[in-house]
């Protein structure tokens, strides 16, 4: 359990550094935005599952924040990718 928390923290920090470098080096295009959205989804889901311990919860209370996350990230993607 203790190791799991450390691994989650390392992943969160690693993905944050990745996002920062993309922005800092101006490597942002449609492909990298998709990657950023996916990694953001993963980061939030990790916080929900391991930091907030929702992985040990069953039923609707396990899924409400994840469904919210899916809707928010999907609509951000729609706003970004939908042709004008």
């Amino acid at each position, binding site marked *: *359990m*203790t190791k799991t*928390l450390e691994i*989650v*923290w390392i992943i*969160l*920090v690693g993905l*944050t*550094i990745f*996002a*920062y470098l*993309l*922005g*800092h080096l101006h490597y*942002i295009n449609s492909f990298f*935005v998709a990657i*950023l*959205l996916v990694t*953001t989804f993963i*980061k*939030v889901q990790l*916080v*929900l599952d*391991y*930091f*907030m*311990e*929702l992985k*040990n*919860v*069953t*039923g609707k*209370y*396990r899924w*409400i*924040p994840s469904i*919210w996350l899916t*809707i*928010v*990230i999907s*609509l*951000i993607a729609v*706003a*970004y990718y*939908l042709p*004008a």
Partner: protein
Amino acid sequence: MPDNAVKKELYPPGDFGVWIIIYVELITFGLFFIGYAFSRRANLEMFNHSQLMLETTSGFINTLFLVTSSYFVVKAVTSIQNLTHDRREEFNKKASKWLLLAMLFGAGFLVNKIFEFSHMFGEGLSLSTNKFFMFYFMLTGFHFMHVLLGTVILFNIFQRTRIHGYTVEDHKGIISGAAYWHMVDFLWIILFPLVYIIR
């Protein structure tokens, strides 16, 4: 049921009241995020141009502050969950050490954000500059208030651990405060790439 299977809980950890607050916050911030994304779509050039004035490094450092602070809070909760009656003092001490670190990182976020805001105001930027900065100041300002409240909550939990106030049977308070703090963390995890990076 296999021996290693973890028994699933019916309700999320902590006081259910805090989860009601979390659900309301999710709706509020969710609408803000989606509103930002569609406004950006309608004003693409202006949003991309304005975004260049943001301090990405400051946003990045703040993400690290919150993610790490969140980790420290989990360590504090784990310390309390693992305490035994004969080692109650030791584990409360451990938890208060983690909470102190979490508060320091929360304060680091706040100080860094105040510097960022004062720099932006110094440049003459404000809510009324354009739609991008309206969203920027509303979103980050509203989130700032949440970090401030979260830090106060952490301080209260910290005070209680210092007097060995939590037991194995009664530690809902620390779990509820932790849940709020993690929410503040993951909202920023979405806000940072959305406002500072994606263009």
